[in-house]
């Protein structure tokens, strides 16, 4: 995938900005965990993978994600006020409170929905790519999925379909070393997912998932290939989640060593990229701090927007079952 995909300075800054935004969004969610109904799966530690991949896309490209659903739409450019409101089940939520934490989305920026049935998004993304091809437009569809999801049959079926149909699809496996509490090596018969690309005659690469530029480069290559009619690719980002599978800190997890978490934290994607921006003279420390402050302010405002927003009216439960509704017996 030797495409020249050097990001511009503006892009490098925007990468930093979006990673900070995800981190602050997640920290806010965890701090207010008791306010948020249902399950919460955070992307903290995985921001470089989320952002590096999404910023390799155009805004009108498509992206499909997973139950770990916060980072992807933010990386794709979704407005966070409506995402926060969704976490709280408010009517101002991007899904009007129908989806919640596991199902963020923003169709206005090509985020076609995160789906919480593990592996179920792979065919959707494949179909979005098929739609592009049938319409003769050059939009690419990117699918995020986890290392655990790679054991699902939909992985196999989707990659095979995309390959035989030469679809403009990019499959990004965010390998964060665990699916729930199961180590990757216990769910996968080979040491990496990328090598399975060979089973579909498509390129497969492994990339450092903590380095946003490395992720961007690998995915941008795959996107360029897809956009120019070269067909699908598989990119595996090696990354890690700092917090528990669903929720916050783990006191003494049995499935992993806290030392492992600490080890990964030494390569945190935010300082890594921040130092690069400083070293390369893209931004000064002061400018970087300004970005941080900016994002902090807007995350705070967005959270406040969500808190202040009203809940939907009870009748809303009956809306959106269909686009052309049919009569349903109601209970209120």
């Amino acid at each position, binding site marked *: 995938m030797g495409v020249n995909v050097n990001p511009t300075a503006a892009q490098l800054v925007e990468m930093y900005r979006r990673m900070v935004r995800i981190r602050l969004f997640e920290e806010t969610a965890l701090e207010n965990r008791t306010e948020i109904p249902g399950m919460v799966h955070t992307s903290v530690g995985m921001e470089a993978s989320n952002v590096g991949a999404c910023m390799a896309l155009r805004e009108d490209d*498509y992206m*499909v994600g997973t139950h770990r659903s916060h980072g992807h739409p933010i990386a794709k450019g979704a407005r966070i006020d409506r995402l926060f409101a969704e976490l709280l089940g408010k009517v101002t*939520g*991007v*899904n*009007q*409170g*129908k*989806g919640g934490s596991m*199902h963020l*989305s*923003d*169709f*206005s920026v090509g985020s*076609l*929905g995160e*789906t919480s*049935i593990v592996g*179920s998004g*792979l*065919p*959707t*993304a*494949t*179909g*979005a*790519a*098929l*739609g*592009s*091809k*049938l*319409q003769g437009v050059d*939009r690419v*569809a990117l699918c995020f999925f986890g290392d655990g999801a790679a054991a699902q*049959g*939909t992985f196999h*079926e*989707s990659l*095979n*379909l995309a390959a*035989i149909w030469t679809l403009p699809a990019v499959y990004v496996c965010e390998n964060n070393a665990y699916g729930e509490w199961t180590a990757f090596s216990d769910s996968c018969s080979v040491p990496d997912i990328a090598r399975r690309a060979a089973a579909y005659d498509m390129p497969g690469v492994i990339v450092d998932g903590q380095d946003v530029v490395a992720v961007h480069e690998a995915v941008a290559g795959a996107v360029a290939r897809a956009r120019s009619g070269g067909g699908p690719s598989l990119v595996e980002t090696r990354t890690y989640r700092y917090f528990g599978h669903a929720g916050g800190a783990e006191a003494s997890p049995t499935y992993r060593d806290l030392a492992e978490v600490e080890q990964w934290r030494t390569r945190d994607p935010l300082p890594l990229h921040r130092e690069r921006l400083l070293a390369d003279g893209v931004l000064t420390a002061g400018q970087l701090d300004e970005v941080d402050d900016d994002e902090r302010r807007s995350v705070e405002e967005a959270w406040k927007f969500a808190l202040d927003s009203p809940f939907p009216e009870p009748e809303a439960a009956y*809306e*959106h*079952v*269909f*686009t*052309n509704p*049919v*009569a349903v017996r109601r209970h209120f």
Partner: protein
Amino acid sequence: MSKLTYTQAITAALREELARDPRVFVMGEDVASNIVGYHPGFAEEFGRERVRDTPIAEAGFVGAAAGAAMVGMRPVVDMMIAPFMYVAFDQIVSIIAKATYLYGGQTKMPITIRAGMWHGASIAAQHSDRPMATLATIPGLKIVAPASPYDVKGLLKAAVRDDDPVVCLEAKRGWPTAQEIPDEEYVIPLGEAEVKREGADVTVVAVSSAVRAALDVADSLREDGISVEVVDPRTIVPLDIATILASVEKTGRLVVADPCHEMCSVASEVSATVAEHGFWNLRSPIARVTTPNTHIPFSPALEPGLYPTADRIAAAVHGVLAAASTR
């Protein structure tokens, strides 16, 4: 008017819709090579991109239909034989039926899933399913079950034009003869039952392949002086309860004939609806004529009697008439 078989009516509907709307495309196993006969000449007429053969990967290609629909296409997926849907069941339930709701109306899901119900063909338990009720338990799917060539043409066209997922469950052997069909285009709105025979004594609500049998019963009982009204819901979801209740109000007696297995069948739903909303009009128990809760056996010595045959429907009609008189 032209005489068309059930399969020819499907072909006519698909051809018209493919010609009408470039967003419509057909996808499934061996659709381009026309193995089952629905798509004669389609590959040449519309090209292999829009008449798209798939590998045997139902979850993959049904799910791909969902993604294509999200970006503005209107896929028509051919499952070939209804039970093959089970392989793609999660995609149908978790994505296709739920996406519009889950994402708060941000996306339409204009997908038509066509599935032939081949019961009565000696192809045994894995191939003979009639999953109308199974799918009806899932909100978010519209379901049509056309019994006749006329109905399948009009309902399939409505399905393709609808902005929601519609499963078209086709009674592949339910209407053995050809039928006169208008040459002009027509569409049958989803959700409208049809009173296929008017009658005064007993209402027979008949579904899918039971419709032809019910009509035969109505015709033959007329000679015995029994007047049977045959109501075909045609659409299972949304179900036209008003027409059914109006008929029962008139006749006071109800038989429901449905090729689903009895347990939680469409027949059970119709019966429960009338027992709830039409109770005071009932002059006798509601009889269901369904497929028993067995699987479908291969042997031709075992299979045919399991479905709602004319004999069984007629016996049920006599039953509700007799029961009423003992009141």
